[in-house]
């Protein structure tokens, strides 16, 4: 280029005087409105087409620190701003619903534990509740209260696992350690209640497997009171930190109407103004006989979803204390389990439960044999993650981990 001395073909070549004049005249013509709208459209389209080449598709996952499980988010980024997102799930699809058609009803209980590893008992509870409805079985009062306590323990440990994950997502390892430490106490409660930490295999069709042991009755109140004090330390760690505030306030905003239409449920929806909680508005078991409040915020950003989850943890403590009083008032001799027949009469039934991540449903089609004809699981996260495009559109790439953490991914139930 330098050798032949022309210099005009190079990238850094100076434009000629005539070129500059032509360009300036063209710009002036645009400003003065000399082009009609059709021509103008062509100019803008041409420029937009060139701009599109700046956008870049980035694959985040399946092995990515933000994903908390095996799933992929393919994002289109324009510089630092996310313009499009495609979530991809299905790496963990086991055909759970089809497998149940090959098992007798009691054998599905341990399988239901494996749907969600963070809060296994809620799905087992939901499954047992659905089959009980099909059998038209009214379970003993005590079993209902024990299931409530077990559900809330699972809600607490799931939310604490979420809190630990949010901590590492935002680069604070202290929150991860503190939340994991508090979670360990609730795991101990699981061990005292049914002998296992995570996959508990505890509810049964017709009640629960065993009565609450004495050691559980003693420690659950101590654990709850301890936790009600300790949670404020974690809250202080987050709310007093400007880094947390700036990354959560005002990110991942969607409107209430969008949220309801896209099918987002659970704490993510209650942080967006959807005033609905199946525990209060469609009470199952004895949730209508214990006192609690449903936190609802209308801000619709990540911070509102975080506050809703933290408040839910405190409400869970209130529910546990209330339900434990009711269990103790019923006495040690009251029944906790009924014998259930193995064949379920033909019909269709569904159960609904407020899972810690949203609204979980099971739809059972039975044909009168001892195996289900079809069992459908409505997983909350499966639908929540389908709304990830409107959630992350317009945010920065660095905000994606925080926004997606606020819907609390759990791939076991998503892919089923």
């Amino acid at each position, binding site marked *: 280029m330098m050798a032949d001395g022309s210099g005009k073909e190079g990238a850094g070549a100076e434009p000629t005087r005539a070129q500059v004049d032509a360009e300036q005249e063209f710009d002036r013509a645009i400003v003065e409105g000399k082009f009609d709208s059709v021509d103008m459209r062509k100019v803008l389209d041409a420029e937009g087409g060139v701009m599109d080449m700046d956008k870049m598709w980035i694959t985040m996952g399946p092995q990515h620190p933000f994903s908390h499980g095996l799933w992929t988010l393919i994002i289109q980024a324009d510089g630092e701003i996310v313009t499009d997102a495609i979530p991809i*799930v*299905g790496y963990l*699809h086991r*055909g759970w*619903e*089809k*497998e149940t*058609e*090959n098992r007798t009803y009691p054998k599905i209980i341990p399988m239901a534990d494996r749907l969600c590893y963070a809060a296994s008992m809620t799905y087992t509870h939901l499954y047992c509740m659905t089959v009980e409805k099909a059998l038209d079985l009214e379970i003993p009062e005590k079993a209902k209260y024990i299931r409530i306590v077990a559900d809330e323990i699972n809600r607490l440990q799931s939310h604490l696992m979420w809190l630990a994950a949010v901590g590492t997502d935002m680069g604070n390892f202290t929150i991860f350690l503190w939340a994991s430490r508090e979670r360990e106490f609730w795991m101990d409660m699981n061990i005292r209640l049914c002998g296992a930490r995570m996959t508990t295999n505890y509810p049964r069709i017709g009640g629960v497997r065993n009565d609450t042991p004495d050691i559980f009755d003693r420690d659950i109140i101590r654990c709850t009171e301890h936790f009600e004090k300790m949670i404020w330390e974690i809250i202080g760690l987050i709310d007093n930190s400007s880094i947390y505030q700036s990354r959560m306030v005002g990110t991942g905003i969607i409107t209430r*109407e*969008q949220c*309801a*239409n*896209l*099918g*987002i*449920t659970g704490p993510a929806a209650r942080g967006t103004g*959807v*005033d*609905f909680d*199946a525990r209060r*508005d*469609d009470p199952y078991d004895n949730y209508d006989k214990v006192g609690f409040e449903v936190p609802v915020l209308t801000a619709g950003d990540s911070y509102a979803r975080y506050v809703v989850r933290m408040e839910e943890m405190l409400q869970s403590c209130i529910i546990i204390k209330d339900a434990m009083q009711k269990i103790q008032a019923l006495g040690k001799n009251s029944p906790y389990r009924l014998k259930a027949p193995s064949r379920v009469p033909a019909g269709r039934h*569904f159960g*609904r439960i407020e899972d810690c991540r949203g*609204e979980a*449903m099971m*739809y059972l*089609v039975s044909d009168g044999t001892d195996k289900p*004809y*079809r069992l*459908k699981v*409505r997983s909350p996260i*499966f*639908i929540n993650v*389908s*709304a990830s495009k409107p959630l992350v559109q317009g945010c920065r790439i660095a905000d994606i981990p925080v926004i997606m953490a606020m819907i609390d991914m759990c791939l076991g139930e998503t*892919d*089923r």
Partner: protein
Amino acid sequence: MGMEIREYSDSWEREVSDALSGRFGAAVEIAGSEVRRLFTKASRDNIHDVCRFLHDELNFEHCAIVMGVDMVDYMQVVYVIENYTNFRGLLVEITVDIQNDDLHIPTVSDIWGGANWHERETWELFGIVFDGHTNLKRLLTPDTYEFFPFRKSYKLRGQE
């Protein structure tokens, strides 16, 4: 109808079923009701109108389930639609029968965005085609699958 939140009263199921029969007559069959549950049967021709009516007139904002059931002689699509405000907690279940030789049904993903993935899942597992769906691709199973694994004709081991 207004969007104000109301407390549950046992006349809700009748209110919704009256509204449905008032608009669609005998085309929507009311199969029964329980507390906060209403079971209905619709047909393939009017399912989109029924869903549109529930969404626009009665404020059913949330589509909880779209699922397929293989009844061997025919297939079924079951919709569970839910309300957040004026009938808070009420679920309407709509069952639609479709024949095995013509597995097509109109999509409702233009009414509820949340139905989008439900319909994709139902398509890939049962082979029920949702007409008008914008992105009917495989979601959970590998793209190379050429069969529909949740049909009763697909046998598991030990299931003969």
